[in-house]
């Protein structure tokens, strides 16, 4: 039974690599291979490379001081943080929110089997993220400290233990999120706040890690002795990496017990949480007069309702709403110093600093890509806009408008903050305001365009259109590409053209591109939507 469920789960996870949802046909082998290579490049070269560099920096010092165990504690800690916090909300939605939960629960399948098959997703994701830390960690250690058979076996077990710890933490955190969301009324916003707290904490640790690691390596003997005295378990954990069979046995057993306990806890509350309709009976309907809206107004309100009702949607596709004001406040506090420092770094060229400021504003605006998945989010209810007397282009305009509104307001705030600290001509200030706004409109139109070109109308969990769809990936990375396309040429030809004309040219380019996309959405896009 488990095999059947795992097969179904895997088919769903890797479906997009083998199956083109747009053409409704299987991808060619070459196409699938290219997709896998791109993914492998991102994971192995980009992420793996970063952690190899960190491992090299730490391993030399600690192994020289005969404190290899501390090296493993540090690197395993990073792997656990990266793996666990990244998948908390995947665990919640992957375990408790899939649409086929009811169907599977009605079948003669044990709850534990369903959970295990669901957890495989979480395990794979966690293993992937912890793997990009742990594999370089082990390889670097084997190269620097040497590798014996006992060492290699214990290290592989350490890797497995780390992946299981990641799974356990993800499960427990996901379970807590599920429990909280059952109790709360405005759970979407609370869940988003918790998630942002986690993400904020994660990045705080990420940015401080370098300093802490340096400090730790510099005073390895002192810290090492302290850990041994006050947290012997950590020392023992690190000893696994050095090939200690006793430590390996103790942690293997302990991890297995913890995993069993986690599965026990999850399976006890699973049915209740997975089948719960939390807010039934809480809100009483009271008739009140409503103001009639236009069709466009109704569609726009609907888009906002969908966005604010889903923590996954807000977190995955609306981070720019938070990051842009944060940038604005940051600029107010540190902007003058940074602009001066960047200008100095480029040989006193203040225009480079201004261009980078503009690019950063645009870059953060690409963190809002809610238009891209909004077509796929219609899912099975797409019959509603299709059967109502509204033009498909109006539906697409509402989707685009939501992104424009949710991005333009925070970007305007950030622009105002930037202009307070940036000494420039009126024309430059006007363009610094205009270009990011035009780019915002362009990004939203591009998102709708990609959403229509790569729709996924059949899904069992909203994570698929929100996170794993081609539309969102293209919208996000495409957005970064468009920013690079704008910023990079200036370093080559900026001196010849000058900042103001350069900004004018790009404002015109993005305006024309927006007009073209708008025309496409009004014609071919509308037609495509009506045929979904």
């Amino acid at each position: 039974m488990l095999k059947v469920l795992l097969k179904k789960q895997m088919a769903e996870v890797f479906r997009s690599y083998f199956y083109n949802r747009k053409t409704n046909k299987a991808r060619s082998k070459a196409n699938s291979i290219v997709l896998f290579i791109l993914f492998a490049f991102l994971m192995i070269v980009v992420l793996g490379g970063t952690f190899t560099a960190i491992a090299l920096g730490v391993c030399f010092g600690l192994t020289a001081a005969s404190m290899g165990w501390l090296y493993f504690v540090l690197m395993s800690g990073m792997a656990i943080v990266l793996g666990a916090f990244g998948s908390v909300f995947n665990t919640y939605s992957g375990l408790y929110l899939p649409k086929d939960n009811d169907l599977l629960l009605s079948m003669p399948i044990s709850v534990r089997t369903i959970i295990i098959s669901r957890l495989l997703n979480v395990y794979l994701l966690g293993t992937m993220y912890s793997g990009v830390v742990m594999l370089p960690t082990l390889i670097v250690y084997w190269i620097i400290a040497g590798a014996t058979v006992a060492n290699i076996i214990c290290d592989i077990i350490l890797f497995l233990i780390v992946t299981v710890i990641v799974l356990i933490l993800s499960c427990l955190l996901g379970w807590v999120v599920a429990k909280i969301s059952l109790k709360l009324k405005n759970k979407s916003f609370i869940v988003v706040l918790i998630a942002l707290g986690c993400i904020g904490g994660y990045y705080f640790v990420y940015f401080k890690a370098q300093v802490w690691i340096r400090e730790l390596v510099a005073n390895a003997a002192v810290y090492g002795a302290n850990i041994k005295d006050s947290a012997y378990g950590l020392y023992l954990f690190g000893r696994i990496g050095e090939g200690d069979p006793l430590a390996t046995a103790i942690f293997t057993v302990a991890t297995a017990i913890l995993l069993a306990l986690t599965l026990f806890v999850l399976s006890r509350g699973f049915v209740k949480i997975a089948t719960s309709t939390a807010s039934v009976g809480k809100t009483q309907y009271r008739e009140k007069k409503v103001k009639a809206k236009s069709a466009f107004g109704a569609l726009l309100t609907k888009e906002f309702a969908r966005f604010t009702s889903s923590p996954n949607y807000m977190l995955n596709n609306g981070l720019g709403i938070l990051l842009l004001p944060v940038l604005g406040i940051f600029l107010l506090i540190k902007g003058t110093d940074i602009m001066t420092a960047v200008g100095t770094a480029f040989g006193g060229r203040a225009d480079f600093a201004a261009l980078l400021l503009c690019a950063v504003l645009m870059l953060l605006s690409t963190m809002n890509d809610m238009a891209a998945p909004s077509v796929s989010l219609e899912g099975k209810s797409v019959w509603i806009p299709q059967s109502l007397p509204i033009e498909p282009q109006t539906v697409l305009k509402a989707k685009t408008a939501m992104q424009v509104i949710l991005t333009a307001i925070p970007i305007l705030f950030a622009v105002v903050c930037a202009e307070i600290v940036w000494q420039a001509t009126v024309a430059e200030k006007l363009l610094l305001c205009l270009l990011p706004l035009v780019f915002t409109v362009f990004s939203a139109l591009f998102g709708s365009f990609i959403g229509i070109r790569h729709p996924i109308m059949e899904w069992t969990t909203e994570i698929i259109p929100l996170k794993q769809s081609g539309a969102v990936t293209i919208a996000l990375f495409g957005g970064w590409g468009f920013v690079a396309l704008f910023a990079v040429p200036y370093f080559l030809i900026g001196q010849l053209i000058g900042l103001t004309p350069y900004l004018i040219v790009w404002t015109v380019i993005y305006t024309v591109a927006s007009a073209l996309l708008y025309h496409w959405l009004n014609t071919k896009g509308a037609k495509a939507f009506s045929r979904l």
Partner: protein
Amino acid sequence: MLRIKNLTKTYGNKKAVDDLSLHIQRGEIYGFIGHNGAGKTTTLKSVVGILDFDEGEILIDSKSIRKSPLECKRLIAYIPDNPDLYDFMSGIKYLNFVSDIFGVASDERQEKIRKYADAFELTKDLAQPVSSYSHGMKQKLAVISAWLHSPKLIVMDEPFVGLDPKAAFNLKEMMREHCDKGGAIFFSTHVLEVAEKLCDKVAIIKQGKLIKSGTMEEVRGDESLEEVFLELETE
């Protein structure tokens, strides 16, 4: 009210609907019956403008659904076989959304919502999210939303599935009342007893082809509708 002329719709090499012609007049409740996969849903979706078709013409109040889709859709209400409504909205928000799209005035919608939600005993649940509704409650919400803008033609795909006996009774009353006021209803069903008692006319479709249609008396003769249907199915 609704004229379907030589409708043909093909999926790949398979003809889902083959040269189908029907005429539904004002005041008529028109039943559409056939086995699973006979082409009922495809026909209904084509009528309401969700599905494009290969050949033929569909006219609603003499307007082509292809040439004037918006004008036609303003005259129609559609209830699909599976009421996949917006889960993220509350019942009342969904009803207001549909009212806004059809331009139903504030007072008018309030009155209708009150009337129909009370009839279906859904009033106290209107503030709840649609995601917490049972299948039957969603079906009731879909029915209420269909009646909000006083459509001329109501197209329904298996409307009685999931409804409790009282709600089913209410729906039948509403259907009759709607047609008595000059509207028309075109609906598919597998419940032949309901079709027999409720419909003025009936059409039987088999493998995409219309095999019999007319008034209930013309179609069934001295037999029951069930007997006629089964005989036609085995032919």
